């Protein structure tokens, strides 16, 4: 019988202290706290949490293993479906997925599944890495031998035409969540996987986008990446596919038998209002890339970042929260400007809560209409209009309508625009036969694109979404690539 206690609170850095540093906000559970929290799970017969998880982790099973203190077993359970648990435990929007469907959440508080997942991953990283590594290595080795045999059988039967060594090469373009999940599954299946990354560091949004205080780079991201490298996955950085090399080159000249495109949606959108190119207007992508990828917050870094007295961030998603909390830590007074109300904020509840705790001001029902500049072309403020909520739009949220004559000014030295991203068309433009929709999203059927042997998943297919959805798509694509290479797919 489940323990009817309140959700076990998670320890966090004090808001006043953390507002001045980039260290991780949430400390996570320790073993006792995790076991206590796990005791709250009802172990439902029909676990709704599993259905709500984009990668279908067997949540009741791993929670039960935590309850019994079998943290290694819990890790293995999660690993069956997720390749990056330490990351997902930190950045998934659990309140709209697993925790959102937890039956306990109907009348009270759901099981803190995300925090439990994070605990299991971190505990494993700290205490069980050695054991885990050698066993995984062992299993992987056995699996690979079997796969190689299978490859040879297929070669003989003509399914996979290859000369030379026994490995089938698969290229994964983009080392963000979709690419990493896809590469991980393909490597487990025994394929020879190379990931191509345009930046100098792998990880995609995990590296350039999500800040250190939410997702530590050295302690979490780099360790997860290292696991993939230990599995034999090659990562080639500084390769901007479409410019450095094309998909045709990879397939025709370099012998890749299949390609997965997980290039995301990286192009920042701007407001399209006057004054947007004034000095002091930044995309959240730029601001976050300077600080996360280029480490501009550190004195050691050669990359500058604009340190404003006052910063306005427009947008209400996770990226807006990340940019706002980064600006706060760099010493700015920060206001988030959002056109709907707190209820409609698309960011994770925890991020909004943390942002508020840290002292970020929220200016709801407000939309900028013009960026105001001083005589030298630097931002001095934004002119905004007040909004009210009208009829629900296609997303089901009530759409904001401007209130005529309600314009007012907010004084600020910088404006960070976090209104979402769109797709870079480079891959589509440089790959003959690759079809897209009007927004540049690659058209796919069960992750297969219109080009034979080319698969895609993540934001480049769906438009900007979440880490876990991209991972789910990456995994589906790995399965589809496997079917295709074995010759029993529909292609």
């Amino acid at each position, binding site marked *: 019988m489940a323990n009817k206690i309140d959700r076990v609170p998670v320890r966090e850095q004090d808001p006043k202290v953390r507002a001045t540093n980039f260290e991780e906000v949430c400390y996570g559970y320790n073993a006792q706290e995790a076991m206590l929290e796990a005791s709250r799970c009802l172990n439902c017969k029909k676990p709704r949490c599993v259905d709500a998880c984009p990668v279908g982790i067997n949540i009741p099973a791993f929670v039960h293993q935590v309850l019994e203190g079998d943290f290694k077993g819990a890790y293995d359970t999660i690993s069956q479906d997720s390749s990056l648990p330490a990351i997902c435990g930190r950045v998934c929007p659990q309140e709209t997925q697993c925790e959102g469907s937890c039956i306990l959440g109907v009348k009270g508080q759901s099981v803190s599944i995300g925090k439990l997942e994070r605990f299991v991953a971190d505990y494993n990283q700290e205490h069980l890495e050695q054991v885990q590594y050698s066993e995984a290595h062992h299993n992987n080795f056995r699996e690979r031998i079997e796969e190689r045999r299978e490859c040879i059988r297929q070669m003989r039967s003509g399914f996979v035409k290859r000369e030379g060594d026994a490995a089938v090469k698969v290229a994964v373009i983009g080392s963000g969540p979709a690419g990493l999940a896809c590469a991980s599954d393909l490597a487990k299946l025994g394929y020879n996987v190379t990931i191509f990354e345009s*930046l100098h560091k792998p990880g995609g949004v995990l590296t350039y986008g999500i800040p250190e205080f939410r997702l530590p780079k050295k302690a979490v991201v780099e360790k997860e990446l290292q696991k993939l490298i230990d599995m034999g996955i090659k990562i080639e950085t*500084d390769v901007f596919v479409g410019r*450095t090399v094309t998909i045709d080159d990879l397939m025709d000249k370099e012998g890749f038998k299949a390609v997965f495109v997980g290039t995301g949606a990286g192009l920042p959108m701007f407001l399209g209002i006057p004054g947007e190119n004034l*000095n002091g207007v930044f*995309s959240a992508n*730029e601001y976050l890339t*300077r600080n996360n*990828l280029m480490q501009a917050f550190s004195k050691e*870094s050669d990359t*500058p970042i604009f340190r404003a007295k006052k910063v306005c961030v427009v947008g209400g998603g996770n990226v807006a929260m990340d940019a706002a909390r980064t600006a706060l830590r760099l010493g700015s007074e920060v206001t988030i400007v959002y056109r709907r109300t707190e209820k409609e904020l698309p960011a994770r509840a925890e991020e909004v809560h943390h942002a508020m705790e840290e002292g970020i001001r929220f200016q709801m029902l407000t939309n900028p209409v013009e960026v105001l500049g001083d005589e030298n072309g630097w931002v001095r403020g934004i002119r905004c209009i007040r909004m009210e909520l009208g009829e629900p739009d296609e997303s089901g949220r009530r759409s904001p309508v401007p209130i005529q004559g309600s314009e007012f000014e907010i004084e600020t030295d910088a404006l960070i625009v976090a209104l979402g991203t769109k797709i870079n068309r480079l891959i589509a433009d440089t790959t003959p036969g690759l079809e897209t929709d009007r927004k540049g999203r690659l058209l796919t059927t069960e992750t297969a694109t219109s080009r034979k042997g080319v698969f895609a998943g993540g934001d480049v297919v769906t438009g900007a979404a979440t880490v876990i959805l991209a991972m789910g798509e990456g995994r589906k694509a790995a399965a589809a690539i496997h079917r295709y290479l074995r010759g029993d797919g529909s292609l």
Partner: protein
Amino acid sequence: MYRIVDKKQLTPLIYSLWVEAPRIASSAKPGQFLIVRTGENGERVPLTICDYDTRKGTVRIVVQIAGVSSSKICHLNVGNYLTDVAGPLGKPSDFMEIPEDDLKDKRYLFVAGGVGAAPVYPQAKYLYERGAHVDVIIGARNKDLIIMEDEMRKVCTNLYICTDDGSKGEKGVVTLLMERLCAPSGTQNGTEGAFSGDFAPSGTQNGTEGAFPGDFAPSGTQNGTEGAFPGEAGVVPYDMCVAIGPMIMMKFATLMAKKLELPITVSLNTLMVDGTGMCGACRVSVAGKTMFACVDGPEFNGYDVDFDEALRRQTLYRKEEQEANAAAGLDLRR
């Protein structure tokens, strides 16, 4: 890691490096650029591609010391490694789309300011090798900043050099030569110093480290005529002008081209971070629309570029750059 296989000092502040980067060497095209990073804390510095050798798998970059990052790059020696070299980035030059046979009948005028000679070189070379008429103007503040003269001479029909102080070639700025080269024959001597006044913003050139740091400080004009000028009465003797150099030079080259009714392409050296379209630091207004220099450019129709905005946006981190230069004890006075 990308090994430096050759290094030459071209002037007291400008260096030429050949770097092993086989993927880039086989895909680079005229008009494109690279992003180079030195050290774990290094900045991503956009630099133009000066040359490439597909067979050896090497690319050549020319770097002027303009700040901490470019200084770090220039202090590396043969056998040392650049931490990252990414590219080629941006779109190749428009003329790459023209069928090679048609290039024979084309007449190009290149205007290179300072280190701008480096990106002009592969473009001139490509066109000249395909039979186009290629005239090149290289301009700089003084003779110490004129680079690649001998190499350039081999890939163009005529080479014209000018310096602000007259220490090499003609005394004067590039626009003066542009005007004279386009003037109907017999009227060259009529050129007047009409542009000296327009070149007011001395000191607008900033220490922004970026794609094509160069040197350009407009000064007085000079009427001395030398060499042959190809103009014919009433006809602009070029199909296209390409200007690459400091932003302020490209602005005035464009104003001159407009006056001469000569189409002009400019290559914008904006601030950049990733260089792949992800950040928008490089945005410029082109024909009233916001474009990203890194993926929509770097080359644009000069007539359409809002140069004043571009000049202003280059100054965004000037304070931070000056502080960094001071902290590193970097003396950029010449």
